[in-house]
């Protein structure tokens, strides 16, 4: 009965694995069919040969010292991934288990080795590792390029902005009304371009983890009072009204002032930019339990529902559906999202195409 069971165990093991046995001198005394199939040697070529006959010269000697120490001295099972050579000197990879077979007095009678051919897996793993390395390298190059390009672009843009601004400030009799109008248009676009470049720099800094946070206590009401005038000027140029609702007074919070202002400036100025003339934008901030909510809602929108999930992707471009031909690059949104994530704030965006869109985020108190 026991013998019959043993035979069945042996059959399944030999069917599934490469199995070989050696005597105490490490001379091969048994190989199964699978061994011959994988190594391309015939049984006759292998029997009575020392087992290192199939060893690949790439394998380090230290490894076999460890093998000997484990199976001969400690008399334990040893396992490792080994590269072996076939008859034609090509190689194959096996996950190997080698065990001494002991008699009742704990003497070694022979060694049994059971291996699984993992060559395909191993080659795939190798290729994957190589391509991951390559991708990391490319990603680094891309970040470096972004960083260098935006740095280099900024200086000439600053100079252009400076001289245009000097021309605009010139006496009225030197620059006539029409020329001044064109200059102002150039100036506004240069300003927009500089913002884009700064956003690009911010993104490369985010990727390099070079942005710091500075937390302090400050009065949120005063902070908003200081923030709004420049946004209102911007809105006035477009004849857009900003309706402000705040339900708290002299609220002191602990946060990063400059990041919060970057957030609100980004969201509100873009709301102004995308809202047509004579419409309005709502800016609500309210205290609810232990959270401060900020809610920016504009009356006209550029995001369709199916695009909502895409808007935080870097360089996502949105087609302005009113002026059909213009594409806006959205660099500021990933920055906004990144700041929020770093500060553990949450943002939700809701939108009905051509009706309204709403940005809402809250910070914990």
């Amino acid at each position, binding site marked *: 009965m026991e013998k019959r069971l043993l035979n069945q165990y042996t059959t399944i093991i030999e069917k599934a694995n490469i199995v070989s046995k050696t005597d105490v001198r490490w001379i091969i005394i048994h190989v199964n069919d699978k061994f011959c199939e994988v190594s391309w040697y015939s049984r006759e070529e292998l029997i009575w040969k020392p087992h290192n006959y199939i060893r690949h010269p790439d394998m380090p000697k230290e490894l076999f010292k460890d093998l000997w120490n484990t199976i001969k001295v400690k008399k334990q099972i040893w396992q490792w991934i080994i590269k072996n050579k076939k008859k034609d000197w090509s190689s194959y990879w096996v996950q190997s288990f080698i065990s001494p077979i002991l008699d009742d007095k704990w003497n070694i009678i022979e060694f049994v080795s059971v291996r699984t051919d993992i060559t395909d897996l191993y080659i795939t793993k190798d290729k994957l590792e190589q391509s991951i390395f390559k991708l990391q390298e490319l990603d680094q190059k891309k970040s470096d390029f972004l960083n260098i390009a935006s740095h280099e672009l900024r*200086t000439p843009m600053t100079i252009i902005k400076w001289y245009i*601004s000097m021309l605009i400030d010139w006496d009225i009799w030197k620059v006539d009304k029409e020329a001044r109008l064109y200059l102002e248009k150039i100036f506004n676009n240069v300003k927009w371009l500089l913002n884009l470049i700064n956003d690009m720099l911010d993104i490369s800094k985010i990727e390099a983890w070079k942005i710091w946070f500075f937390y302090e206590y400050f009065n949120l009401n005063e902070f908003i009072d200081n923030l709004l005038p420049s946004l209102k000027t911007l809105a006035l140029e477009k004849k857009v009204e900003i309706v402000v609702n705040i339900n708290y007074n002299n609220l002191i919070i602990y946060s990063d002032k400059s990041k919060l202002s970057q957030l609100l400036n980004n969201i509100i100025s873009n709301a102004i930019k995308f809202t047509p003339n004579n419409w309005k934008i709502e800016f609500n901030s309210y205290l609810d339990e232990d959270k401060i909510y900020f809610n920016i809602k504009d009356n006209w929108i550029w995001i369709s529902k199916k695009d909502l999930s895409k808007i935080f992707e870097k360089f996502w471009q949105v087609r302005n559906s009113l002026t059909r031909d213009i594409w806006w690059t959205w660099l500021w949104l990933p920055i906004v999202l990144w700041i929020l994530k770093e500060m553990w704030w949450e943002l939700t965006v809701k939108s009905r195409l051509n009706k309204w869109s709403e940005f809402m985020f809250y910070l914990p108190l």
Partner: protein
Amino acid sequence: MKNTKKIMIVEDDSSISEMYKIKFEKEWFEVLVCENWLQSLSKIVDFRPNIILLDIMMPQMDWFEVLKAIKELTTTFSKTKIIIFSNLNSSKDIEKWLLYWADDYILKAQVTPKELIEKLQKYI
């Protein structure tokens, strides 16, 4: 020439320093451009500027050491104002440290020539 005031610009990019020079000279400043800290340190005593405009992106010496040196040089003879003019807007901590030695910190990208002149006029 009405109320000639002296301004020293420390800026390594000549196309940028030239642009400041043009604007400041229009506004009746006497302008001296230095390409680096060392030049600036060696010329301060002779030039005796009312204002020093420093670009701190320049990769030379330690900022605080230089600021300290300039401050020590200038307090001996006049009330020179040190103004840092930079695009370095990454850390509030650094800004605070710089303001220990300097009188103001202006972000390059955020001011127009007119606004910069208005800010500078406050200091003279």
